[in-house]
């Protein structure tokens, strides 16, 4: 099957507007989705789930969220770690205060709470832009981490200051707690990823997405053609934080199980997710996945190659990881600011014409 759009005629605007205009892509999408939902759960073991798949899925949600804010709306944020912490602590409080509540509701409500907090911290974006806004969101990062350390109500006055997720099940299957099966963790996260990616795509292709991109590309012109900048920016902060809150909630409840806020949701988490978005591609749904996959995979691959195959010391490999990530960030910012997604797009454009040059 060739990668062609010729002959694939669109007869309605809805068809012209679909996510995958080329048949090959559509088929590929369904194949991957079915494989991820039906085949992978049977093959996944603890190592694969905990070191690759679950973190990839959760970071993909966080990267999607940050991409909406930074890539689509052009508002730089360094508060991702803080907002993930809001999601995690909301989940914890909801799970302990309402033990009967199911995990879907808990996670979605954590997202809603984070959305409200995110919109509040988005208020400065109406006055300040660029680096100055990044510094303002940095304040959110440090304030939120400090808050969750300082106010013991958030960790139910436990002596250690940690929060740990009680066991909860969905349809009789454990999804949180230490006894959870790897495939259950994976599937629970996968459901959120698929639905949220679909929501992100819907939002960014419609009216809201155009408002965000208009603000990103030229805010003054956007305002003159009728975009209310206050509502556009705050909605971007709210939606972005909703995604990041869900990612934070899942990171705590499903993935780690126990969290100490300063260690897990510190500034390095904000940078990690920002790097995913930059390397993956600003303003691209695919890019969020590519960036998350890349940065989750990189340390694992380096460890396998460096430690297991070449016999290098673990700390050297860990430092090498930092060096490579740093180098790649500079490389992408200079050479390809639209990241892996743009490389993928170029490949597809070439494929459409292949084997002819024009």
């Amino acid at each position: 099957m060739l990668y062609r759009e010729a002959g694939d005629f669109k007869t309605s605007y809805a068809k012209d507007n679909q996510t995958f205009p080329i048949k090959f892509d559509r088929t590929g999408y369904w194949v991957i989705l079915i494989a991820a939902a039906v085949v992978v759960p049977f093959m996944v073991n603890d190592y694969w789930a905990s070191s690759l798949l679950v973190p990839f899925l959760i970071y993909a949600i966080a990267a999607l969220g940050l991409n909406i804010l930074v890539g689509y709306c052009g508002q730089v944020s360094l508060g991702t770690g803080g907002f993930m912490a809001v999601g995690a602590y909301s989940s914890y409080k909801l799970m302990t205060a309402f033990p009967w509540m199911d995990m879907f509701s808990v996670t979605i409500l954590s997202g809603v709470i984070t959305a409200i907090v995110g919109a509040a911290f988005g208020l400065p974006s109406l006055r300040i832009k660029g680096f100055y806004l990044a510094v303002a969101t940095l304040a959110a990062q440090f304030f939120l981490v400090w808050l969750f350390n300082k106010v013991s109500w958030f960790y139910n006055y436990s002596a250690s200051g940690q929060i740990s997720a009680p066991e909860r099940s969905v349809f009789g299957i454990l999804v949180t707690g230490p006894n959870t099966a790897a495939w259950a963790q994976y599937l629970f996260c996968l459901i959120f990823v698929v639905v949220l990616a679909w929501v992100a795509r819907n939002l960014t292709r419609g009216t809201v997405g155009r408002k965000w991109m208009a603000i990103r590309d030229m805010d003054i012109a956007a305002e003159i053609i009728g975009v209310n900048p206050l509502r556009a920016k705050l909605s971007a902060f709210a939606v972005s934080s909703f995604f990041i809150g869900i990612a934070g909630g899942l990171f705590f409840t499903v993935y780690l199980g126990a969290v100490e806020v300063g260690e897990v949701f510190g500034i390095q988490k904000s940078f990690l997710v920002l790097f995913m978005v930059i390397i993956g591609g600003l303003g691209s749904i695919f890019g969020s996945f590519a960036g998350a996959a890349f940065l989750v995979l990189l340390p694992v691959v380096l460890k396998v190659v460096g430690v297991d195959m070449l016999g290098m010391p673990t700390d050297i490999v860990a430092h090498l990881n930092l060096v490579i990530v740093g180098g790649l960030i500079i490389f992408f910012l200079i050479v390809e600011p639209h990241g892996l997604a743009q490389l993928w797009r170029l490949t597809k454009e070439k494929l459409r014409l292949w084997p002819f040059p024009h």
Partner: protein
Amino acid sequence: MLDTDTFTTPDGRTIGGTVMDLRNITLRFGGVEAIKDISFDIREGEIRAIIGPNGAGKSSMLNVISGFYVPQEGEVWYRGKPRPQMKPYEVAQQGIARTFQNIALFEGMSVLDNVMCGRLGHMNTNILSQAIWWGKAAKEETENRAVVERVIDFLEIQAIRKTPVGRLPYGLKKRVELARALAAQPSLLLLDEPMAGMNVEEKEDMSRFILDVNDEFGTTIALIEHDMGVVMDLSDRVVVMDYGRKIGDGTPDEVRNNQDVIDAYLGVAHD
């Protein structure tokens, strides 16, 4: 108080009553008076030109009309009512669309998305409906797409629909910007130098589009332009500005023979 007479132009178009009435507008930036006590009106269905040498305050005038600048003195009457102070996006929602002197397209988006942006004021499904892309959101998208496609056909930019705006040459960008403004189906269209930097052929195309827009949709147009030939051919009435003052107002013929206007353009020493 407002003039509501209608009359017919020599070429058979109907000009209606006053849509926009600017009364004694004064705009200052610090100590500089960009616009000094200017009054003029724009009638429904007419093409109204604002001309003047560089720095005369023409663009500032357009910015006052589109709500981007707030004049220190004077009133803007729109559709028979004094307009309260409002934000630019609220002005846009009242049916005033504009293009810019320096192209202000959204470079990261395709032509289609740019033109769809012109419809933003007409699309109002809530964010939840859009998130699931079901029912009203999807329906609204196709309905507005149909409007946009008519504009795209009208301006003959079908072939570049899906092209990112950043890749287009200057002349086409100007046309896309006009398309975005037209997609809003404005009752008043403001064009800030629609033909700046174009060659003769592109100017002819653009003039034809402007006349067609006025003719087919009955859109009221206010435009700023430096090319005198174009202005005199296109417009029904012309306002001439110089150093922030109005020095002439009337039909192209009246303006052409106005001594102040001739002085301003040929350059007479100011005393």
